[in-house]
């Protein structure tokens, strides 16, 4: 039996979340096929075919897949599903949006946010904001899962030579229509893929002050993240939110500035390799998970840090 990985891509390239999901699929003793459903997505399919460990790429190219509408993508996956034992999506906004629609139609209990694969039918996943790890076993014929990308090292983008097969597209569902996307363009790395993340919390005090993180992030080539408190206060956009209900990150270096460390925030970053915390409150819970803690006024520490790099 074979695992089908649903690629996340922008038609030109596959996103790194796809590489982590392929790596998870490789842990099963199965073949790995990758579905690239897009519009003008031949380049993405070619990129997927070169990824180490991929046995076949299925390209479905049609206008109704241009914007990743869940109704259409799920229907396409279902058209192919009967050949597979496992269907894996990255646990990203797109994957989480679509995977349950596939699971429902297969009458399968989806396993969300898999962090470890014990066997073909047994998986580990975090619950209660990562305060507990559940091991669950599925008896469903097809196992549908979303993969927490930070829990699996990315598959190498070279070394593979998979065939690209074209499959017929399912019709547009007509249920939903894409209108537009408002995506912030930035030279910074993507939050979930960055080697270094600099995150700010309510301690920054204002949207203007939040921008004080920029020079430090610039010097480190880091992505900027935020606590929910900072997002709720309007200091930072929602898609910067790191935590249980936001992004899960695990960079090489995570610098938390003015973040107290609520359990919901820790759930999103505690698997980072090295954690640095800067906070004026020596009792802040963030220091409980930090490798290096510095008690001080962030308005003095931030410029000093930036200068020293």
């Amino acid at each position, binding site marked *: 039996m074979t695992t089908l990985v649903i690629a996340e891509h922008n038609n030109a390239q596959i996103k790194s979340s796809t590489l982590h999901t392929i790596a998870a699929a490789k842990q099963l003793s199965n073949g790995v096929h990758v579905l690239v459903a897009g519009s003008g997505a031949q380049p993405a399919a070619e990129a997927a075919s070169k990824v180490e460990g991929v046995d076949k790429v299925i390209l479905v190219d049609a206008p109704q897949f241009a914007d990743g509408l869940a109704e259409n993508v799920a229907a396409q996956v279902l058209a192919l599903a009967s050949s597979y034992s496992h269907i894996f999506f990255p646990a990203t906004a797109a994957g989480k949006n679509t995977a349950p629609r596939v699971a429902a139609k297969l009458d399968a209990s989806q396993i969300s946010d898999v962090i470890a694969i014990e066997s073909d039918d047994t998986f580990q996943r975090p619950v*209660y904001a990562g305060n507990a790890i559940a091991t669950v076993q599925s008896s469903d014929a097809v196992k549908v899962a979303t993969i927490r990308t930070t829990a699996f090292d990315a598959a190498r983008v070279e070394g593979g030579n998979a065939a690209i097969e074209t499959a017929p597209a399912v019709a547009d569902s007509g249920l939903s229509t894409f209108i537009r996307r408002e995506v912030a363009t930035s030279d910074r790395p993507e939050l979930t893929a960055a080697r270094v993340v600099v995150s700010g919390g309510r301690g920054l005090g204002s949207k203007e002050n939040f921008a004080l993180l920029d020079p430090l992030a610039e010097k480190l080539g880091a992505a900027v993240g935020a606590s929910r408190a900072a997002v709720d206060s309007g200091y930072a956009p929602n898609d910067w939110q790191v935590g249980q209900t936001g992004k899960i990150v695990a960079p*090489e270096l995570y610098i938390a500035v003015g973040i107290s460390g609520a359990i919901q925030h820790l759930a999103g970053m505690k698997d980072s390799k090295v954690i640095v915390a800067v906070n004026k409150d020596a009792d802040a819970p963030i220091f409980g998970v930090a490798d290096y803690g510095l008690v001080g006024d962030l308005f003095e520490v931030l410029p000093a840090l930036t200068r020293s790099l």
Partner: protein
Amino acid sequence: MKVITAVKRVVDYNVKVRVKADESGVDIGNVKMSMNPFDEIAVEAATRLKEAGKATEVIAVSCGLSQSQETLRTALAIGADRGVLVETDAELQPLAVAKLLKAVVEKEQPQLVILGKQAIDDDAGQTGQLLAALLDWPQATFASNIEVNDGTATVRREVDGGLEIISLRLPAIVTTDLRLNEPRYVTLPSIMKAKKKPIEVVKPSDFGIDPSPRLKTLKVVEPPVRKAGVMVPDVVTLIAKLKTEAKVI
């Protein structure tokens, strides 16, 4: 149009749960229970649609133990008109909840169902999408704005990297993200008024649905503990440690 909102009784978000010694689950005896925060946003969104004259009736639905009636009362205090409890002692997993909600939806015939994007206990984040698929309805997950007009809902969604705006043909499913609204503070008069609103109690068997869990939980354990780090006195020491000890810069 009728709007249904689904609400779940969960361990309060301020409670740090403990894993049971026998690894069978987490200990939720004697801990504070509340409405799932994203569901509160869903009830608020539905209530605002009614206040804006877009919705005629808001029905709050919960699935679970009889104590979920308290959660429904909170929904009624925010502004729902009536409640439906699908009462069961079974451990409910998302697929079972979606099937139960589908049965309620088929009976009530709403044009819109608003759910939280995720419950903060099992963190599954599936129910809205499962329900949409079972009904063959369109969906907009992670909503930060909803506009309803002439048989369509235009929804702004929080996605990776920014926002996306899509239009759904009604009836449809919407799941809520944090920025959709800030739920109102529930006042004492509204709590008193909520006590008089009706709650209908039904059983899964009334719909011919077996809610038994399908995923078997083999064990639940504490996550690995991060070992305590060190405090550094100043920026110079911090930079030195990051360079020579951690070797990350």
